[in-house]
Structure formats: C-alpha cells, structure tokens
C-alpha cells in the first residue's frame, strides 16, 4: 500500500472510532468532554490556516467564532433549518473577514497581531452592548435536547476543518501561503501575490471558525451572546496550535486534545490552582519545545534512528577489531 492509502485508512478508522465513541461510552460527562475536544480541534485547526501556514499571527479569531455563533443561533432559533443556519454563520464570518482583510493586511508582524486583537475587542464590546440578554434555548427545544446529534455535528465540523486544512496545505494555494510565510518579499518577487494568498487563508480560516461557532450555538443551552466573542477563545486557539505545532495538520489536533484533557484533569485534581499550573506548563512548552509536540516527536524519532545507526556501526567495527566490545553512548 502506498503511504497515501495508509493515511486514508488510518483516517477512516479514526473517524469510525470517534463516531462509535459516544455509543460505547454511556457517561454524559465524557461525551461532553468529547464535544469540547472536537470543538477546540476545529478552533485550533482553523486558526492554523492563517496563523500557522500563512504566518499571520491573528489575534482576532474569536470574532469569527463569535459571528458564527451569533448568526447561527439567530437563524436557527427563528426556525431556519440547521444546515442553512450554519452556512449563514460561516458566511457572516467570511464577509467580516473580507471587510477587515484588506486594511488589516497592510500591517505586518506584531502590528497585525495587535490590530486584529483590537478589531475582535471592538466586536466583543459592541455585541455585549447590543445583545445584553442571555440567549437560552426555548423550552420546546430544551425538552427534546439530545447530546448525540451535537456530538456528531462537532465531529463533522472538526473533520471538515482538518480535511480542508490538509487539502489546502497540499495544493498550489497552500504552497503559496507557505511561501508568503517564509519570506513575503521573495514570494512577491516570484509572482506570488501575498495579499491574495493571505485573503484566501483568512476566508477559509474565518469560514471554518464560523462553522465551529455555529456548532457551539447549536450545542450550548444558555449563554450571553458576548461570550463567544471573548478574547479567551483566540488565546486558547493560539495556545493549542503552538503546543501541538503550528503549520502542521497534526499539531492543532494533538494540541487541542492535550489542551482540553490536561486542563480538565488539572481542574479536577487541583481545582483552584489549575490555571496557574497550566500556565507554567504552557510556558515550559514554548521555551523548551518551540515547534510544539510535532517537532519534539520528529526530533525524538531522528535521535532514536541516529542511535540505532550508531549502535549498528559500533557493532560492525567491534566485530572487526579485536578490542573489547563497548556499547555506544
């Protein structure tokens, strides 16, 4: 089997296992945790398209997520079918992304990061002012509330986000995006339009984040409309992507799962101290595993391979020489 076929089979098996997961586990709290993991994977992966592959540190991701929840919730609760509401949420995020994209991409590096943070903050405050009331599900929806379809929606959105990232990263567009990340001026000089690639990445990132927001709106029983616009969603997405490894497909998946599960575990074990320990853990990852888990894994594999080769070499030379056998370092 070719490498691609192996990857495809592995993917299908994983998806099958994830789909069977809530049927095998009876505990609601575990299924809820699964929902959360999938949501965070979608969030981190969608951020990664612009932040990782295209190298534009976007600190306004919460705006796309928030707009997705806002539009989906309003459409869905006013009686539109769910798929249409989700599409509406994703589209609104894209419209906003394109509106802000051209001015925002005049900024580079730290200024882009601060600028997008400010934009998201404007929406956060404004939504809090315009929609001050709690958005609760109406009683007839609540009476029929089931966790399973929510879980599968999260699974679908996460799978779509990861698949879209994979296809994009392996396309001509994706190569252009990475070229822009590595050296913007050089890419431009070779005829790769930086603005075009950044806008494509931004739109894809925003649409998928909007869908994730839509799934959140379908899932959550009651929240203030301002909540999904909180900068915390952005910071979480950024942290997850970095912990896992930015600019990779696997990174945000590993990062998202790690982030949610470790945070929950610490919250159970340490209760009030958990965010402090989590912050320390996060800083340690940034300092000592700069490429995230993905790079650490690659290093580990390389080191193991080198060690095996060395041992083989020393064994070979040991046979030829008469001296006593000395194990490698």
């Amino acid at each position, binding site marked *: 089997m070719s490498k691609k076929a192996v990857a495809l089979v592995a993917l299908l098996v994983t998806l099958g296992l994830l789909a069977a997961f809530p049927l095998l586990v009876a505990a609601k709290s575990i299924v809820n945790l699964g929902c959360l993991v999938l949501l965070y994977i979608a969030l981190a992966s969608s951020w990664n398209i612009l932040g990782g592959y295209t190298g534009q540190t976007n600190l306004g991701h919460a705006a796309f997520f928030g707009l997705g929840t806002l539009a989906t919730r309003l459409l869905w609760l006013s009686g539109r079918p769910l798929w249409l509401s989700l599409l509406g949420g994703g589209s609104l995020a894209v419209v906003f992304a394109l509106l802000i994209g051209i001015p925002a991409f005049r900024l580079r590096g*730290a*200024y882009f990061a601060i600028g997008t943070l400010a934009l998201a903050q404007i929406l956060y*405050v404004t939504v809090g002012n315009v929609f001050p009331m709690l958005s609760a599900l109406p009683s007839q929806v609540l009476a029929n509330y089931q966790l399973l379809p929510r879980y599968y929606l999260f699974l679908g959105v996460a799978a779509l986000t990861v698949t879209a990232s994979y296809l994009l990263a392996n396309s001509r567009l994706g190569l252009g995006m990475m070229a822009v990340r590595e050296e913007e001026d050089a890419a431009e000089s070779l005829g790769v339009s930086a603005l075009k690639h950044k806008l494509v990445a931004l739109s894809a990132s925003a649409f998928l984040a909007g869908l994730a927001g839509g799934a959140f709106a379908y899932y959550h029983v009651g929240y203030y409309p301002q909540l999904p616009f909180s900068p915390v969603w952005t910071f979480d997405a950024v942290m997850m992507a*970095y912990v896992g490894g930015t600019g990779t497909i696997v990174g945000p998946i590993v990062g998202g799962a790690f982030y949610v599960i470790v945070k929950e575990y610490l919250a159970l074990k340490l209760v009030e*101290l958990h965010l402090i320990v989590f912050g320390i853990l996060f800083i340690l990852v*940034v300092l000592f595993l700069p490429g995230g888990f993905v790079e650490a894994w690659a290093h580990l594999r390389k080191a193991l391979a080198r060690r095996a080769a060395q041992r083989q070499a020393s064994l070979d030379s040991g046979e030829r020489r008469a001296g006593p056998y000395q194990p490698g370092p």
Partner: protein
Amino acid sequence: MLVPLAQNVVSGILVGALYGLAAVGLSLTFGVTKFLNVAHGELLMFGGYASFWAFTLLGVDPFLTLPTTLVFLGLMGVLLYKLLFSRMVKATEDVKVKNTMLIGFGLSLILQNVALRLWTANDRAITTSYSGMALTVFGVRLPVVRLANLVIALVCLVALHLFLQRTCTGKAIRATVEDWAAATLAGIDIDKVYLESFVLGAMLAGVAGALVGVGYSIVPTMGLEWTLIALIVMVLGGLGNIMGTFVGGIILGVTQSVTSYFAGGAYREVVGLLIFLLVLVFRPQGLFGTKQG
C-alpha cells in the same frame, strides 16, 4: 453644557496620564528588545497590589511607598527576564515577537490567578484620608489624588527622559534601539541593555499600577484591559517616542471620556480602539512619529 464637557476633558487628561505612563514602559521594552510582553497589564496590577497592601497592612501613604513598589516590580522584572525572556534574546525578530507573546499569555494566566488566589476577586481601592478632597476651578472638580498622579507621571517621564539622554546606560539603550548590530560592535553588552530596558518597563508599569490603585481601583482581572490600552497608546504615540507616547495616552483618555459624555459609557472602549485602528492603518509610524525608510 460647557462645564460638564470641560469636566470630562479634565478627567480624560487625568486618566490619560496613567495610560501614557503604562504605555511608555511597554514602548521602552518593545522598542529595545522587540519582546511583546502581553503580561504588561498584569505587572501593572501587581504594582497596584503592592501599594494597596503597603497602605492597608502598614498604613503607609501610597505616595511614600512608590519607591518600594518600584523596587518590588524591578525585582519581579529581573526574575521574569532571567527566568523566561532572556532565552529569546538570540531569536530572530519574528520568532521573538511570537514567542514572547506566547510566554506573555502563559504569564498573564499565572499572575492573574495568583492574584485571585492571594487577594480574591474584589475591587480594591486605596482610600487615604485626603482621597475625597478636590479643588474646584471654574466649576470643574479636580480630585487631589488624581492631580498628584498627573504630577508623578510627569516626574517619571522627565526622569526617564534625563536617564535616557544623560546617563551611559541610557545612551546604550538608545543606541540599541537605533541599530543593535552597530551597538554590539561598539562594545555595548546587548544582554545587559535588554535586561535594563525590560526591568525599566516593569518598574514603569508598577508605578502606573500604584497610581491606578490610588486614583481609581484595581482587580486581578484588569491586566488584559491595561495591556490593550498600553498597546494602543504605544502605536498612537509612535514607537520609541516617549513624549509622543505620553501625549497619545492623554489623547486616548480624553477621547474616551468625551465619548462617554456624548454617547454614554458603553462605547468608550470602542472609540479608542477605532482611532487606534485608523492610526495603525494610515499612520503606522504613530501620530508623532516621522516616516522611516
């Protein structure tokens, strides 16, 4: 009509001076090291608490404890720099900005929760015997403590200006801002300059926090808001321009309070952010900066 408006402008200037002070610290650190310390607001918060507890437990006047707050934040700065930020000195600018930002995220999570655990989520304010006093000029109320804040902010600014202009260390810092490679060739110890400017930034945040505690109130979750304010003002004033940054702070303060006067308090933050975005896009060198390169 006119008096309430004047009152708002004056309040804006008084709070803007603190915005300026917070931003000058961030701008100094960022200008020299390119460390984007998003936990700057948390340092400010710690300065506020240092001063609050000195006043509450020991009963010492908050204006007298400013030197100890300075020392406390200076030590915190040294510790954070040695432990975390010094590892980023040799990275390229891009990596530096990103990684220090991430370290800052982790740090703000830690500091905020440490403060929550130690000091609860309550709003605290330093209420001295003279806190209620105010001068009234043409019907405009000028609270004494906030006036004192303005004076102290100006003193800090002048002291910083003299330090950067007159002392050897200050000159080394300015040389590093202009061209770190040339500065190294001239025998300047970059590591030392980075440490100094980081610690200076932390100390300025500490003073600003102490003054916020006297004139307004402090709470463990105030960090992000103040980091944003400092970032906004830093860009408004133009990087490396101390006076410009301070004036930028006052402009932001006045804009916010005048907006509250005309449109209510709900959108005061939004207007500041909008101005910031416009400046960022159309005058990236800042309101008072000159275009380079």
